[in-house]
């Protein structure tokens, strides 16, 4: 393990990687030059953020109200940023597709939020949180960004408590925390199983306060459909009023995308149904690079699929793995039996068997992949979905015997109720069934240290950017990133950009504005005019099946090539056989879906190309061709220690691959091992 002494190290521990294998040859064009993040200060890692804040220029308070900021998204990242920039005096316009900012997908987060407060005096520190996050991300995140995240984490808790977020407390009235997601210190703050809801309500209320003050104008039921780029710089967005259908032009001095993740590309996921990639994808088509799109996080403890009608998957908090034991029958013949009739000697507690020191608490990617392996071997349980049973048992019988039913009820009551409501089975009596599901994406738009994309004036925060989680996100760190970006990082970095203002006035008749608007209108009329036979939903489902099968937990060269062909066919069929009823000048949910689904289809193709290119296993991404003798994930640091940032290659063209080397100065790259 790297010691804190490494903090001062400035040596490049890994040289610039050189790629030898190139599966994706023929699918992309390599860029001539390496991409670099020129903004991160060099020097001691612990001083970089302080240095950057000092070097950033200031904006005179009197000038702030003359500067217009557009923020797309009202989740933790967007809501917190709108509140903070509004307080600072900028003129903020905030957009979301829901009827209220309070409904952004962040609301669904259950488990908790990390912060290096070291309230338990158990050895936590900024450095340790940084170290755990980089290691957990399988050394594919950017170290300067992660260190900053750990550094501001403690302020987040202060901010939220001051807003009235009701975190769990002990009898002395002080904040309580727990350990989470395989981490050995207690640094996770929580509000029962509803941490995301409470944090979002805090940010939302802070933002509504600014709405009342007049610094923030909120546009709900508005969907951003295009970025306006004038002379290479982002200057606004085109949005559709989802109620009236009106296409609106909104101009500004800077645009922030805080539009969340794109896990819904898999159709079935734990994301909210409306979560989409449209804002990011439209920016990508306008020139913003999409980084590491294939990095998907799969969560091991979700309620399994019950049939074709299924529209989404529900997460069961990871905390269940603290007491539940995971097993499948040793013999395939037993899979249809009542689990209570299967004797102890016929059960395979496979995580405890393979990983004796971590057992049921191995990290998410490992727990997920082993569950899939068991089901692929034909030892899955529950209903037959497709060709096999997709479920493994999460058994509380031992915990109930050891702690008593009341103690278990006290700890997990709401989760057990939720499970029973969805499956109709009582988990106090019959073991729960779980299966992995797509949960979060670590890929997203490329940003520099300032959270600015390669398009000047276009900033990207929260799950929509790529920088902090590498190839695998540890539990309770996405909420931390959303709020760190929104409250503390972006307001500081955007300032430096805005200090260049006042900016040249742009009118609605500028050719770039007209072009953006026309392209939106044309796309909408195209959707309505195809007049085919299939709903947007049916395309989405088909895409999801392809993605899960070939670009899910385990990927292979052969499978990915096949998937790319299938997606290309699907895209052609979409444009010839889509059926959208209704009109453009009214609320039309089928039309909204059509726009999101075609963006997902295009993204899906890029995800497969990215996965094909990365012939190594890391984090949530397991490449069949890259494993150790005993079947564990094998990284190739000498070849792949880089960020893959893809540039849009035009319709029918090839994406261009830009590589940014990942250089670690404060941490040493190690293979992860949980055996």
């Amino acid at each position: 393990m790297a010691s804190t002494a490494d903090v001062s190290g400035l040596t490049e521990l890994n040289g610039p990687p050189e790629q030898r294998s190139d599966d994706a040859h023929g699918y992309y064009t390599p860029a001539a030059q390496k991409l670099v993040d020129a903004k991160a200060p060099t020097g001691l890692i612990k001083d970089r953020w302080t240095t950057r804040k000092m070097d950033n220029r200031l904006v005179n308070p009197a000038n702030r109200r003359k500067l217009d900021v557009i923020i797309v998204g009202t989740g933790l990242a967007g809501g917190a940023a709108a509140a903070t920039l509004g307080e600072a005096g900028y003129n903020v316009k905030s957009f979301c597709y829901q009827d209220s900012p309070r409904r952004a997908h962040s609301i669904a987060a259950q488990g908790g939020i990390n912060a290096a407060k070291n309230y338990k005096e158990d050895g936590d520190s900024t450095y340790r949180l940084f170290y755990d996050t980089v290691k957990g991300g399988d050394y594919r995140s950017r170290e300067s960004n992660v260190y900053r995240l750990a550094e501001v984490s403690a302020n987040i808790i202060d901010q939220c408590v001051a807003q009235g977020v009701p975190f769990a407390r002990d009898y002395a009235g002080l904040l309580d925390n727990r350990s989470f997601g395989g981490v050995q210190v207690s640094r996770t703050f929580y509000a029962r199983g509803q941490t995301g809801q409470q944090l979002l309500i805090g940010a939302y209320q802070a933002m509504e306060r600014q709405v009342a003050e007049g610094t923030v104008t909120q546009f709900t039921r508005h969907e951003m459909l295009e970025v306006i780029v004038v002379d290479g710089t982002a200057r606004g967005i085109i949005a559709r009023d989802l109620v009236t259908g009106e296409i609106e032009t909104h101009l500004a001095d800077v645009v922030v995308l805080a539009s969340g993740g794109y896990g819904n590309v898999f159709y079935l996921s734990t994301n909210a149904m409306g979560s989409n990639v449209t804002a990011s994808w439209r920016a990508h088509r306008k020139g913003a690079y999409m980084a590491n799109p294939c990095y998907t996080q799969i969560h091991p403890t979700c309620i399994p699929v019950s049939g074709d009608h299924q529209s989404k998957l529900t997460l069961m908090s990871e905390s269940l793995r603290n007491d539940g034991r995971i097993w499948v029958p040793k013999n395939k013949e037993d899979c249809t039996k009542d689990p209570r009739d299967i004797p102890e000697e016929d059960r395979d507690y496979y995580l405890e068997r393979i990983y004796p020191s971590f057992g049921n608490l191995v990290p998410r990617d490992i727990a997920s992949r082993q569950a899939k392996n068991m089901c692929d071997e034909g030892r899955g349980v529950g209903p037959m979905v497709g060709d096999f049973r997709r479920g493994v048992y999460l058994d509380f019988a031992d915990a109930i015997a050891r702690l008593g039913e009341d103690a278990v009820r006290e700890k997990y009551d709401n989760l057990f109720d939720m499970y029973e409501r969805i499956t109709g089975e009582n988990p106090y009596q019959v073991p729960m069934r779980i299966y992995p599901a797509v949960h979060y994406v670590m890929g997203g738009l490329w940003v520099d240290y300032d959270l600015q994309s390669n398009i000047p004036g276009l900033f990207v925060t929260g799950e929509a950017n790529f920088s902090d989680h590498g190839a695998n996100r540890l539990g309770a760190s996405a909420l931390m990133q959303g709020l760190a970006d929104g409250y503390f990082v972006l307001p500081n970095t955007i300032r430096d950009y805005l200090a260049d203002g006042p900016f040249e006035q742009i009118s609605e008749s500028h050719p770039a504005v007209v072009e953006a608007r026309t392209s939106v209108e044309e796309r909408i009329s195209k959707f309505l005019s195809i007049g085919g036979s299939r709903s947007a939903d049916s395309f989405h489902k088909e895409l999801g099946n392809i993605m899960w099968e070939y670009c899910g937990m385990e990927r292979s060269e052969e499978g990915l090539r096949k998937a790319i062909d299938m997606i290309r066919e699907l895209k052609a069929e979409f444009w010839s056989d889509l059926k959208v009823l209704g009109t453009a000048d009214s609320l039309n949910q089928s039309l909204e879906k059509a726009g999101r689904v075609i963006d997902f289809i295009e993204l899906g193709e890029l995800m497969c190309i990215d996965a094909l290119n990365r012939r190594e296993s890391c984090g949530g991404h397991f490449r069949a061709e890259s494993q150790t003798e005993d079947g564990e994930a094998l990284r190739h640091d000498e070849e792949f220690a880089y960020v893959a940032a893809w540039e849009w290659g035009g319709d029918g063209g090839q994406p261009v691959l830009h590589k940014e080397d990942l250089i670690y100065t404060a941490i040493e790259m190690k293979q992860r091992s949980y055996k």
Partner: protein
Amino acid sequence: MNLTLKIWRQKDAQSAGAMQSYSVADISEDMSFLEMLDTLNEQLNEQGEEPIAFDHDCREGICGSCDLMIDGQAHGPEVTTTCQLHMRSFEDGQTITIEPWRANAFPVVKDLIVDRSAFDRIIQAGGYVSVNTGSAPEANSVPAPRDKAMRAFNVATCIGCGACVAACPNGSASLFLGAKITHLGELPQGQPERMGRVASMVAQHDHEGFGGCTNIGECTGACPKEIPLDVISQLNKDLRDSLRAGF
């Protein structure tokens, strides 16, 4: 199962609406109520009839988007959100009536969708603690008694769905309002603004066209988060104190 659905269809806020009948077949009891509607919508799209518009997002019972009046009950026969209601709560051959929330302050937007932005405006009137980013004291410097923090949490679970308003014969939003007043009022951080907050939030509530509370209690019975009725007593007490204090 096979079901007959009677559903409110309304083109937009200006048009008049009417009930329409549809039938769906082969509904599995493992489907959620919204998945049953998805099935109907897929069927309508095939038949060339515009699908039914309804609000939903998380489908996990937490975002508060879904909002259907099912057989005259807000969110249907179980105490939960519409997205967490499953078809096993219904019987084969049943006729189910589906309508939007009905309340003056929630105008219909289309079909089953209503406009609940009045809730945002009530929050804008004072449903927050005025703390700027960066000016917060160290979190543990202000302890909050555990029982008070627990109570604050219990009522902070309100998801803003509006079932309380839909269930109330007066169309009052007192449960929603009481939940927020109690959440912030139980915590030390909420004290400095406590009196002003209740006065302006209640004024906004009345201004939006929500009715007054006459203690009928339908709200708490329909609330998927089981917000207790005593938050309304807390609301009234704080309102009285604020009037006495001259707010």
